[in-house]
């Protein structure tokens, strides 16, 4: 109630008038009432009423927050966070080496950035993740839907069909091996059509469309509450040309990063971005570094760099808060993103393979 007038989200003109009239706290405003307010400041009664309703809403929100209810700021103890993290799912990538390196797969509520030269497999991994996020829970997935924002036009539906067919086949093998009731039931709804229908595709042609789409994402995610993955394929492409004002670019990118973090947290979704590589020309040599500059490096929580070594594709974990740096090889097969030496495909091994990759969920903890 002792909130200062200057901190209320009123229109700036109104705030200036209130300050000129000598109002200091929200309590004073509420005590004056709409008629008194309109006479003192010289605004209409309706405007005064609107302003007071806004103030009341804000103070109510404040009170709820200090009482420890859910609001925009939440307090947790580390133990609560630990339990929440352990219960959270990961989105597997079907490449066990990559999943192990990431600590189970692509983590929900975090931003993962994939950097690499053209042709190394970034879009392939994004398409693989868009399919893998939909794997039902009984097979070790998060049973979510995916939003795919494409800025470069590299999304190929036929390729997604191939990847999805391989994934469904993989799950069918497990179901046959383990013969459990819920596996077979899940398989009924986990088909090619349902996978494709739950990938929501947006094609953004320039950075304004990308910004507009990210502003509209929270609304979209509230309507489609099962979305657990947001992929932005090519965050660098629209920002790398036609930008004379680099400070504007940095500001827009920072705003974008903040909104994505909010989206990832509020909707418990994983955000995956792909970035291009650029050459940094040093004193004696030039190195390939991720594009968009140093300030963008802070946006992502986890950073993966894909590169070539002769003809072998490698993935390096460049930045991660919980896993150590490592480099692993991977393959792109007709079925999608895979390990270099796929483990023996025996029915029994399939079942145990999928589960140990992620930390056990609360319900499945062995006593």
């Amino acid at each position, binding site marked *: 109630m002792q909130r200062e007038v200057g901190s209320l989200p009123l229109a700036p003109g109104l705030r200036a008038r209130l300050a000129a009239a000598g109002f200091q706290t929200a309590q004073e405003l509420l005590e004056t009432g709409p008629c008194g307010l309109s006479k003192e400041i010289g605004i209409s009664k309706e405007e005064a009423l609107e302003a007071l309703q806004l103030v009341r809403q804000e103070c109510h929100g404040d009170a709820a927050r200090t009482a420890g209810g859910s609001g925009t700021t939440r307090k947790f103890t580390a133990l609560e966070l630990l339990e929440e993290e352990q219960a959270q799912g990961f989105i597997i990538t079907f490449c066990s080496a990559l999943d192990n390196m990431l600590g189970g797969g692509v983590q929900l509520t975090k931003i993962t950035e994939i950097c690499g030269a*053209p042709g190394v497999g970034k879009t392939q991994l994004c398409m693989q993740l868009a399919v893998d996020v939909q794997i039902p829970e009984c097979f070790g997935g998060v049973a979510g839907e995916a939003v795919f924002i494409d800025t470069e036009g590299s999304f190929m539906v036929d390729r997604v069909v191939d990847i999805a067919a391989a994934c469904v086949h993989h799950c069918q093998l497990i179901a046959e091996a383990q013969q459990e009731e819920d596996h077979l039931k899940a398989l009924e709804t986990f088909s090619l059509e349902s996978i494709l229908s739950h990938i929501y595709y947006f094609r953004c042609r320039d950075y304004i469309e990308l910004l507009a789409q990210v502003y509209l994402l929270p609304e979209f995610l509230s309507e489609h509450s099962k979305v657990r993955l947001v992929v932005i394929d090519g965050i660098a492409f629209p920002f790398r040309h036609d930008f004379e004002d680099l400070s504007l670019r940095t500001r827009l990118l920072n705003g974008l990063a903040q909104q994505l973090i909010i989206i990832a947290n509020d909707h418990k979704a994983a955000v995956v971005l792909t970035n291009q590589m650029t050459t940094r020309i040093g004193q004696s040599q030039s190195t390939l570094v991720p594009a968009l500059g140093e300030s963008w490096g802070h946006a992502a929580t986890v950073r993966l760099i894909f590169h070539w070594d002769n003809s072998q594709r490698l993935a390096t974990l460049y930045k991660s808060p919980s896993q150590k740096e490592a480099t692993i090889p991977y393959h792109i097969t007709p079925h999608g993103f895979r390990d270099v030496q796929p483990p023996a495909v025996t029915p029994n091994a399939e079942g145990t393979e999928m589960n140990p990759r992620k930390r056990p969920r609360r319900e499945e903890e062995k006593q």
Partner: protein
Amino acid sequence: MAAKKLRRAQLSQELCERLNRCQITTCKDFLCLSLLELMKVTGQSYYEVQKLLCKVSRACAPTMQTAYEMKLRKSVNPSSAFLSTTLYCLDRVLHGGVPCGSLTEITSPPGCGKTQFCIMLSVLATLPVSMGGLDGSVIYIDTESAFSAERLIEIAGNKFPAFFDSDEKLFCMTRNIHLYRELTCCSVLKRIMSLEEEIISKKVKLIIIDSVASVVRKEFDTKLQGNLAERSNFLTRGASMLKYLAEEFSIPVILTNQITTSLSNGPAIQADLVSPADDLSLSE
């Protein structure tokens, strides 16, 4: 989309006038401002400004389609998804031919046959659909003055003697191939930007640019300061326009590139032009 005037984003008249006074007329200007700046220029409260932001975003944002809808649309007309090159092995490797709706790059050392391939594809594109063509016109942007009309007729006459049995048919085919000789980067870019209307009026089904590398290497010496940034600027603008045209009209776009030597001990790599991986980041 970005240059869309705020008037058409369904904002109220007085709000548009107020924003006009601050030089904010397009959606682009509006979305580039932060929330606090927007509050200042519109004079509205925080929550109102957020609603305005959503309104303007809705005017600019792309429409959603599910992957399933995309697949259905493709499977409705599978034959129109590729332009067959009539080389059986190449078609097999490309899963049908040169794909429609995306950019294809052809690269080689000089003398291997890029221009010949492009000329042959232009003939193929003018053929009717029953013969594996696209039944449309071709826009051929030639930067090296390597296009030869006589060679075009020779290829057509020898490859499809049954179809091109009269001079009349040959002239009809040549009338469908529109050649533009552009010798500078600027004119190439201008030509690409003006293609949209030509595609609709001339019923174009194939765009060929032969070659991108020659104009760029002529004008941009990458050892000079600032040229690298300008070069990639030019290339990405051209590339995004071409991608838009390819996707919008579902036509194939073919670009040719040259080979350059990378001065390490590896083999010669292609001039990395249409996908500029190098860009100076020092200016950040």
